[in-house]
């Protein structure tokens, strides 16, 4: 913060100015100009077309009138199977994903591995984290076919990226003295992991798993849009049939289930702390 902006005038009055957030004026105005130019350019590329928006409005009305009231019954059994499949995908992918994240997370923790292993672990986690589940979903659908299995594989990788990174961070934050103490007893590497590292990250790990259950349930609702099983499939075909009543019913149930899952996952996390 600049102090130079405040000066005492010759008549003794104090000239006060609010200190600027970025004190270097060149940088301040440079950033401002850059932001303005960038935004003007970016808006220009958006192809905002008001006539199209206008034409869209009746279409929107049509969609909403189709969506209200939501139609829970005519495709009721499809909706139920869709949600059950989403939940199954969530459970399996979270279990396998978390179990896989442990070795990869350990590999990617700088304080307990050698450099080459660390780089491999980091690279795997970065790739898994960078790819959106829908991208992964498309790839797995191509590789192993439509259905829940592609969805499970997708969310396993998604979990690996997310939980793996947080486990690595948790391991990097542990108290090293406890490792030294166990090492000093003559214990081997894996015994040290079990005795000195695991107990320290266990609460975080359980909390993360609960949280990931919640995240995976959310993600499992969209990967179906690309054919990877679950309620997303049902939703996509409802949209495809212009069956907006069923679509809105699915969206409402989705909101409800996600809220319940969030509450339950929060409760479980508090319980395991």
């Amino acid at each position: 913060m600049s102090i130079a902006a405040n000066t005492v005038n010759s008549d003794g009055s104090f000239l006060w100015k609010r200190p600027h957030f970025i004190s270097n004026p060149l940088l301040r105005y440079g950033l401002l100009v850059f932001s303005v130019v960038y935004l003007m350019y970016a808006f220009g590329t958006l192809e905002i077309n008001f006539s199209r928006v206008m034409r869209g409005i009746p279409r929107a009305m049509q969609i909403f009138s189709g969506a209200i009231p939501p139609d829970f019954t005519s495709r009721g059994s499809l909706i139920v199977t869709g949600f059950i499949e989403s939940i199954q995908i969530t459970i399996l992918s979270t279990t396998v994903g978390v179990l896989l994240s442990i070795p990869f997370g350990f590999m990617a923790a700088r304080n307990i591995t050698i450099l080459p292993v660390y780089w491999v672990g980091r690279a795997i986690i970065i790739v898994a984290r960078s790819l959106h589940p829908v991208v992964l979903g498309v790839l797995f659908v191509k590789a192993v076919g439509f259905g829940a299995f592609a969805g499970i594989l997708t969310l396993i990788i998604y979990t690996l990226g997310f939980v793996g990174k947080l486990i690595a961070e948790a391991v990097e934050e542990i108290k090293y003295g406890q490792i030294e103490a166990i090492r000093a007893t003559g214990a081997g590497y894996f015994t040290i992991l079990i005795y000195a590292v695991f107990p320290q990250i266990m609460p975080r790990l359980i909390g993360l798993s609960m949280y990931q259950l919640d995240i995976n349930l959310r993600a499992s609702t969209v990967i179906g849009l690309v054919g990877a099983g679950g309620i997303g499939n049902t939703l996509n075909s409802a949209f495809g049939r212009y069956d907006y009543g069923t679509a809105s019913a699915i969206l409402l149930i989705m909101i409800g289930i996600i809220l319940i899952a969030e509450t339950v996952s929060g409760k479980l996390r508090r319980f395991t702390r």
Partner: protein
Amino acid sequence: MSSLTSGPLKDLGKETYHWQRYTFKQRMGRYSAFVVVALLLYWTLSTVDVFWPWVWSAPEEINDMLYRMMPPNPRAIPEIIPVLIETINIATIGTLFAVIISLPIAYFGARNVSPNKITLAIARVIIVASRSINTLIWALLFVAILGPGPMAGVVAIAFRSIGFMGKLIGESIEEMDWGPVEALQASGSGQGHIVTYAITPQVMPTFWAVAILRWDINIRESTVLGMVGAGGIGMLFQVAIDLFRWNTVSMVLVSIILVVLFGEVVTGMVRRKLI
């Protein structure tokens, strides 16, 4: 000199001790948790609609796909760069809109400052609906309404982000120190002054942190918008997949990873500057 061997520990008594790692109650708790998880997994595995022969051949199929992807096709780069920039633009403008809209929503959605129960309820409903529906589903909806193109993507990103930011900023308003508000009330300030002088400074750090975080997330999200026609690199990805141009697919994947990493580096830098 004598060697360092000390005798076995002595003079410690001859008592034996029966030790178990957990008490009876703890053990029962662990067993029942274990049984619940096992049953859940059993139910899932026995009912899930998976064609098992495909599972066993999966490693081969995935390997085969990876093999076909190698090496990434550099000739796709001229196609990729414009849509990659479009991806970043969608994320940025979408986040910008969300920032502007989420501020009043956060204010009305915070229990301690919301004017009345009705504003609170409305804000809460908006937050919940926005948060619970995935960006891609919002995109599907807005492509249907606005037609395909980046604008649908921007609106989808904004609609999903409003709830996220509104919730987190609202929570920080609820947790803030009430003292400064009272001090300003005591000095006779109006609600406008209270917002600018007592609430805004306290919420500012969270606001920036949340906005930056959401921008980072939105870069990831906007990489898939194109798959439903809402602009960005997703369209190119979908086309390459549909045409089995595997080397282009892998080039697109590499560029997605790079742009996401770029987002992380930028947010990291801004975060360090601001916080």
